[in-house]
């Protein structure tokens, strides 16, 4: 029996993981990341001469179920054409039997990396842009179910992309998808229910809604609203688990937005991602937010903060008039 050195064994071990791209237009550059059911590899598309990302199923995954799941993810992505959702170029089966799909390679940072050093208003603008593709997907009847900082990428040109739709599900009660005239993908709901394990717990603790955690079948798009709230809490406090209410540094209206989005009862949450984003925009514009009934004193403070320059100018003018009148009487 040939004796293999530790070095050769380590090399063979590493090589066994590399997907067999024989017969495809791609060649592997390096490993990028590991996900729930496979790995993402940076590859060269030798026909178009560009870098792409290949998501490839694990070598030893039970091919029937996970292969179908990966292909389904690719189809969902292909059907969701939005600047905030990574586009899919190709999908298929490799020579070693593994399912793969090819998508745009996003060079950039994860949300957690990107928000370091960013101010409050930049963070809230970011949330608004995360909500856009989410709302777009919800309108087409898809639920992400795994929204978390690792699944949001900010590209080199500042584009915000919601990634990893591997746990996405067809909503049982999605809004009508064709309002804007864009054709939607119609995946096989029977298949999707099976491969996503309807009734089983899928998602990430800390970002998963209570109903999703219980593994119930009644999860709808509002589970993503909960995750969006957790994402906002993460951006404001550095942790999705830390209640923003306990952090005095977070303004009360923003705490209220988080609390509303993360309400245990889905009916008490925002009913759409757009609605939640609109509330954060209201806060940024100095308008009252829907989630927070402000008191008289807070209202005055907010109005003052919003119109500070005008109020100071008018005040200064009035003061000058008073002085002028008093001076003229003498």
């Amino acid at each position: 029996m040939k004796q293999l050195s530790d070095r050769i064994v380590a090399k063979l071990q590493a090589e066994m993981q590399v997907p067999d791209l024989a017969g495809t237009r791609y060649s592997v550059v390096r490993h990028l990341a590991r996900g729930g059911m496979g790995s993402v590899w940076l590859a060269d598309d030798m026909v178009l001469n560009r870098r792409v990302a290949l998501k490839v199923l694990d070598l030893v995954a039970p091919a029937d179920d996970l292969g179908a799941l990966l292909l389904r993810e690719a189809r969902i992505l292909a059907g969701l054409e939005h600047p905030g959702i990574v586009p899919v170029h190709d999908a298929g089966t490799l020579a070693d039997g593994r399912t793969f799909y090819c998508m745009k390679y996003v060079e950039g940072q994860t949300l957690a990396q990107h928000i370091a050093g960013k101010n409050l208003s930049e963070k809230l603008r970011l949330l608004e842009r995360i909500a856009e593709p989410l709302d777009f997907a919800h309108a087409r009847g898809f639920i992400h179910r795994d929204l978390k900082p690792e699944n949001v990428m900010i590209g080199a040109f500042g584009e915000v992309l919601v990634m990893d739709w591997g746990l996405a599900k067809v909503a049982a009660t999605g809004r009508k998808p064709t309002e804007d005239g864009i054709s939607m993908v119609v995946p096989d709901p029977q298949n999707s229910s099976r491969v996503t394990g309807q009734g089983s717990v899928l998602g990430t603790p800390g970002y998963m809604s209570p109903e999703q955690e219980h593994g119930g079948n009644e999860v709808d798009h509002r589970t993503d609203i909960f995750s969006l709230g957790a994402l906002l809490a993460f951006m404001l406090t550095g942790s999705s688990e830390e209640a923003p209410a306990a952090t005095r540094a977070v303004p009360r209206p923003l705490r209220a937005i988080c609390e509303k989005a993360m309400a245990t009862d889905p009916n008490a949450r925002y009913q759409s991602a757009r609605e939640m984003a609109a509330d954060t925009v209201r806060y940024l514009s100095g308008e009252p937010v829907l989630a927070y009934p402000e008191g008289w004193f807070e209202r005055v403070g907010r109005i003052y903060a919003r119109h500070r320059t005008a109020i100071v100018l008018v005040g200064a003018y009035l003061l000058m008039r008073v002085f002028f009148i008093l001076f003229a009487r003498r």
Partner: protein
Amino acid sequence: MPSVTSQAGIFPLTRHSVLVAAQSADPVARSLAIEAITLAYWRPVYKYVRMKWNINREDAADFTQEFFAHLLEKEFLNSYDSRKGRLRTFLRTCADRLFMNQMRDCKRLKRGGGSPHGSLDFEQAERELATVPSSESPEARFDKEWVRSLFALGLQRLRASCASGGKMIQFELFELHDLEDDDPKPSYSQLAAKFGLATTDVTNYLAFARREFRRCVLDQLREMTATDQEFRREAQALLGVDIR
């Protein structure tokens, strides 16, 4: 020591055949299965006991042979339940228990006694052991040796498959390019010149050999595991990916 080539003839490559045979009531099937398990595990066990219990090489060699003899005689493997853990962890625990029992009973190891295989190359294993970093734990070494054994058996399987399929050039290219420690390794054009091939042929032949090697290793692993679930768990560990 019987080779895997001969083993392949004895054991048809059915899924999980070795473990099933090792737990069967048929003494012949059991004996052959234990022989296959010995081939894959004697080196990890030998190095593990040498490192863990700090015993001399003769006692470690005796213990290793006695351990596999016990595996056959005492029907250790019948108590193995794949739902409770991996086979390799089970075997390592069995080795620990046997050693502790022998220490407790103050039983001296019988030199060369009870061995099902007379030609385990302990000298070679000892030379390999000399290069192991002192900081490495016996458990980590056991796992590394398990991977090494698995790859070596996979390689034998690949050689047999290439020989029967008339693809020995592919195997030789793989050996020269991927399995030699020499640095720098030969370039594709050097190999092409040596074998009288085009460079593109070398690329294709190597790709074929690597693909086949992977298949052979996974076939070998499947044979050495009890269930699909254990196979996947072990393969994930082998490939260095997270186990969920």
